[in-house]
């Protein structure tokens, strides 16, 4: 963040230092074996050159087989049990084929687990390996976004009741407090959020006994929100530029995989790639993208056009130079304009592709159905039935059904039964589990009774008829008229104690709480010149649109800065 909010780069530096420690623990040249799911996040922490500097000769992605010449291996993995089997197999195969064993180290991310170690024992390789931890938790994605990239958090917590990832969340908050001072005000909504805050307080007490670090708090407020509190939002189609890129192409750890013609390479280069996809980073380093990402997609066309004219005008300038210094100025700017030109080409291609999709009847009808459901207009039951009959993707059908169930307080039992059988007989009996899980999560339910969503909608002003997409006048611009519940809660955070908000919060799932943490004596609570910094932590994932909405809040109030943390970036498909 340019206003000099907290120094997020320090966090990256910390992760980098820890990584170097891991690498240096095995002296000399070595091979690095990565959890495939970790290579993206690690790329955000350190460059390949750094790995090379510290003796990494080759990098492998962990799979069943590993043929390597490296004599020393470091595994950097999440403690998943089937990985233990892979590693044991590697060790046994090397033993058999080479007649000797290599030197093996396993570093668990973010921490070792008893059960993983037991598995290594069972495979008979526990004594062969050196075990360590690499406490990678919140990874800076952008100047204002941190993510842990733990995939299973939502299912683990809400479906299986496994609270391991909550422990990670609590620890990541502790880590932030160590670097940026104790956060005096914490409030939150949801059972997982409550769990986390309890853990944080307990850990804080333990730390306090050891040493109190006298740092002036750089973050004043922490808001913890369970994904479970607002499942409506992720089910809606994201309508910001970045959101649509995610819906259509999929964004993975800040990167998008694109075909060569999207990027606009020339034919030679295209042939070399042979239809393979290229990973392109999408973040605020690309000036144009930083401008466009959070805008409603309907404004992207004109914006791209404006940019094109601007670049064109700049290039044209070279025809009417009069002095040498004019020419020098031109050359100075040329580099950045050429960069902008390239990025413009990329984004024009992408925007065109998205436009093709959004122009289709299918997309429009889906959007219409969503907006009707949100506004509480007529039910789109028939439309959903049609989707099933046309055998549209099951995910799409389920997203709509979930939306309908959530906005009407459960489907009427008869309707529920109807969809239940229709889905099973069209897509197959196997999806019985999927439906059962969704029912358990309360996402698709059968029920009758008063519709509380109406009340929530009214109190939180979720539907804005007169939203301006070009010059946003409300966070609802991100969904062209619907304001995400989660972000409304953040927006109204200071009003949680008012009676109307209390009523709303009562209707949303999970407990509501607010606690104050004591800061060490003699430390100022805030330095005067400083803005209020609010950290919003989404447990179970956040969508790009919600981030856009929070960034909008950020612009609105010059005295407040928001930072977003989450367990994972998500969309309705995940």
């Amino acid at each position, binding site marked *: 963040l340019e206003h000099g909010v907290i120094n997020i780069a320090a966090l990256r530096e910390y992760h980098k230092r820890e990584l170097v420690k891991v690498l240096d623990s095995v002296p000399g040249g070595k091979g690095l074996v990565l959890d495939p799911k970790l290579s993206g996040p690690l790329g955000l922490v350190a460059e390949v050159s750094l790995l090379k500097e510290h003796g990494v000769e080759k990098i492998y992605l962990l799979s069943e087989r590993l043929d390597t010449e490296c004599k020393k291996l470091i595994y950097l993995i999440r403690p998943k049990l089937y990985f233990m089997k892979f590693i044991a197999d590697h060790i046994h195969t090397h033993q058999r084929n080479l007649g000797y064993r290599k030197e093996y180290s396993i570093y668990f991310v973010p921490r070792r687990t008893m059960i993983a170690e037991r598995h290594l024992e069972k495979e008979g390789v526990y004594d062969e390996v050196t075990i360590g931890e690499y406490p990678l938790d919140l990874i800076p994605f952008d100047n204002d976004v941190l993510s842990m990239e733990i995939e299973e958090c939502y299912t683990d917590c809400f479906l299986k009741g496994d609270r391991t990832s909550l422990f990670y969340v609590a620890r990541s908050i502790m880590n932030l407090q160590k670097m940026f001072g104790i956060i005096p005000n914490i409030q939150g909504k949801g059972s997982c959020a409550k769990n986390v805050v309890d853990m944080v307080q307990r850990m804080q007490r333990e730390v306090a006994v050891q040493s109190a670090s006298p740092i002036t708090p750089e973050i004043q407020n922490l808001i913890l929100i369970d994904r479970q509190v607002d499942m409506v939002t992720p089910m809606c189609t994201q309508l910001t530029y970045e959101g649509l890129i995610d819906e259509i192409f999929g964004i993975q750890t800040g990167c998008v995989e694109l075909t060569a013609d999207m990027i606009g390479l020339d034919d030679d280069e295209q042939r070399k790639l042979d239809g393979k996809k290229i990973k392109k980073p999408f973040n605020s380093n690309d000036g144009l993208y930083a401008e466009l990402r959070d805008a409603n997609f309907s404004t992207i066309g004109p914006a791209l056009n404006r940019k094109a004219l601007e670049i064109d005008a700049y290039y044209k300038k070279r025809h009417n130079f009069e002095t040498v210094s004019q020419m020098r100025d031109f050359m100075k700017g040329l580099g950045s304009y050429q960069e902008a030109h390239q990025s413009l080409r990329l984004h024009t291609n992408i925007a065109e592709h998205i436009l093709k999709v959004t122009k289709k009847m299918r997309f429009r009808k889906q959007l219409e159905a969503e907006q009707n459901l949100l506004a509480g207009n007529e039910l789109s039951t028939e439309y959903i039935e049609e989707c099933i009959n*046309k*055998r549209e993707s099951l995910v799409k059908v389920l997203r709509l059904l979930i939306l309908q169930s959530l906005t009407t307080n459960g489907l009427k039992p008869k309707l529920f039964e109807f969809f239940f*059988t229709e889905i*099973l*007989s*069209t897509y*197959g009996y196997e999806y*019985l*589990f999927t439906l059962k899980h969704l029912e358990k999560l309360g996402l698709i339910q059968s029920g009758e009774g008063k519709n509380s969503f109406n009340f929530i909608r009214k109190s939180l002003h979720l539907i804005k008829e007169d939203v301006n997409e070009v010059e946003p006048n409300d966070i609802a611009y991100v969904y062209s008229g619907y304001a995400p519940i989660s972000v409304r809660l953040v927006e109204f955070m200071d009003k949680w104690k008012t009676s109307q908000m209390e009523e709303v919060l009562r209707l949303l799932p999970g407990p509501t709480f607010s606690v104050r943490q004591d800061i060490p004596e003699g430390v100022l609570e805030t330095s005067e010149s400083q803005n209020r910094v609010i950290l919003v932590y989404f447990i179970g994932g956040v969508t790009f649109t919600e981030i856009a909405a929070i960034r909008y809040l950020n612009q609105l109030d010059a005295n407040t800065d928001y930072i977003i943390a989450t367990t994972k970036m998500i969309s309705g498909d995940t």
Partner: protein
Amino acid sequence: MAVVEAYQFKDIEKRIRGLKVALNLYKDTKEQLATKATETQIRLLLLQCDLEATLKEGEFLGCSMSDTLYRVIMLGDLRRAQKIKSEFKVPDKRYWWIMIKALAQKLEWDQLEAF
């Protein structure tokens, strides 16, 4: 859980037996919808065995209800499709969709018009 187990069997007889175990479990826990779905699935598997045996072409096992119908229509056996429809109480709307899709795929426009 029993369903997962049942699906591990490639052998169809064993799979049906497994599903029957699941069926009883669902009955015990009074999961009406799941009970019904499992009953239907057992009947469907039996039907698919029968189809494979009598039609001598096409694979049916493991298909969903709608896909089974679609394949029967694709093979041209409209009478049998009609019979399956009433046996499994397939709603008209869905039946027409399947029919239209299959006939269009086969380019049998006369039949399509005959609706």
